[in-house]
């Protein structure tokens, strides 16, 4: 059994070498060149590729400059933005409605950023948004937990 396996293996190797001989040297030189080249990939958690500034990632919302015009909710192609009221404890300070973004529906087109007259809603470069929990995709205008 073992010998059979070795036999099959060597004959396959012979075939492979035969095929390689037939090929033009181009591909072979490519193989050897690749032995000394740096890999195209990076080891992700330790090493990261640089994310350009324009990259469209998670939203950042500044409630103090927002004028509650609702343009962002109107232009959003996926209807991912809903204008909601601030939580009761903040109602006095922020009486109007503010955009709540559902990242689960968002296609990261940045139209909301372009249309916002005050620059309150912007897209950051943060892209690590994968989640197992559907409830975590909502981005409320006031992040209560963070303030507490």
């Amino acid at each position, binding site marked *: 059994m073992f010998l059979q396996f070795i036999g099959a293996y060597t004959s396959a190797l012979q075939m492979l070498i035969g*095929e390689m001989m037939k090929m033009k040297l*181009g591909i072979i030189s490519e193989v050897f060149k690749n032995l000394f080249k740096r890999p195209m990939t990076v080891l992700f958690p330790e090493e990261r590729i640089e994310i*350009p500034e324009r990259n*469209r990632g998670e939203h950042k919302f500044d409630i103090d400059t927002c004028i509650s015009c609702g343009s962002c909710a109107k232009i959003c192609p996926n209807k991912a933005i809903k204008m909601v009221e601030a939580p009761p404890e903040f109602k006095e300070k922020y009486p109007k409605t503010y955009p709540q973004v559902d990242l689960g529906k968002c296609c990261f087109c*940045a139209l909301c950023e372009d249309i916002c007259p005050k620059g309150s809603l912007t897209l950051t470069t943060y892209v690590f948004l994968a989640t197992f929990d559907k409830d975590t995709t909502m981005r409320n205008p006031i992040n209560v937990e963070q303030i507490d």
Partner: protein
Amino acid sequence: MTSTQKKDEIGDFSMNFGPAHPGSGNFGVKVQMQGERVLKATADPGYLHRGFEKLMEYREPMQNAVLSDRVCVLEPLQWNLVHAEAVDYLMNYDVPERAKYIRVILAELSRIQSHFIWYAVMSLGTGFMTGFNVSMGYRDYILDVFNLITGGRVYPAGYICPGGVRKDLPEKAENKILKLLPKIDYMRKFILKENPAWLARFKDVGVLSKEEAIKFGATGPVLRGSGVGADVRRDDPYEVYDELEFDIPVRDEGDGYARYCVGIQEIEESMKIITQAIDRLPKGEVRTPNLKPIVQFRKAKGEIYIRNELSRGEGAFYMVANGEKTPYRVKIRGPSFSHMIPILEYLLTGVDYADVPAIYWSLYQCPADVDR
């Protein structure tokens, strides 16, 4: 009892090639087989149907620009461009010169990365994994530049939008593109190295004659691989293509190998176009002045059929505006439809089953674009 079965006793049977098959993308072909031979092939589209034409009737042009990315995953910037041109015409926008050049540069980069994918999937379909890996790796360098300019690697989200482009090129983008060209050239030379396995799989396979190519409505590299030198960039120039110098490669053989050779030569031509365009890139605005993100589409009236040369062939938008906020009717003409249905069915008749993926991928199609 085992090995004495005569040839005519082998039963006919039918098989599905795709739609959920690693070698087929999202497109299915039902093949009727007799032993190893394909008797009849029937294309089975619809797996990826998303109803874009109808969807676009309910959205404003800027939102449609974002949607137009999705028509074909592999060449989103070029679909952006066709859509933007249709709205530009209906709205009478005077697109600034700089925007036109940026549009051309990005469309050509998109063509190159799409050709890389073509080579990658042709390799994948015929079991040449090295080709696939190397090609997709080099494509990533182009995606890096897309990320820098448009903010998305694959989807530009309507970067080429009605009235120009959404943002000006960032600093150093031109340098980055020029630095990219040697890498593209390296990859092109890698593809050019002929290997016998590749030749055996594609030479004289899937031969499409000139007359048939015209009859079935082939466009792009498939048509040019069959000996017809038609290219919308030359025949009906759009943007600034009439000011740039480039050749249109044509091959006469009409087999899978000729089609892919046309593709490789086109990469070289695209590189020429990019160098010239960066050389002449004027300064100035990139969007029609005072244009808000919302296009005032109520002002538009009339209809337009506009066509572009995409990497896969001729892609077009037909759009009717009748004074509403959204287009009244949108029709998309994709190049892959005629490649995938009449031509594929015709070419697959009577071939060996092993040639099915080779012919399938050499037709340079995009399943997303067939179904839309």
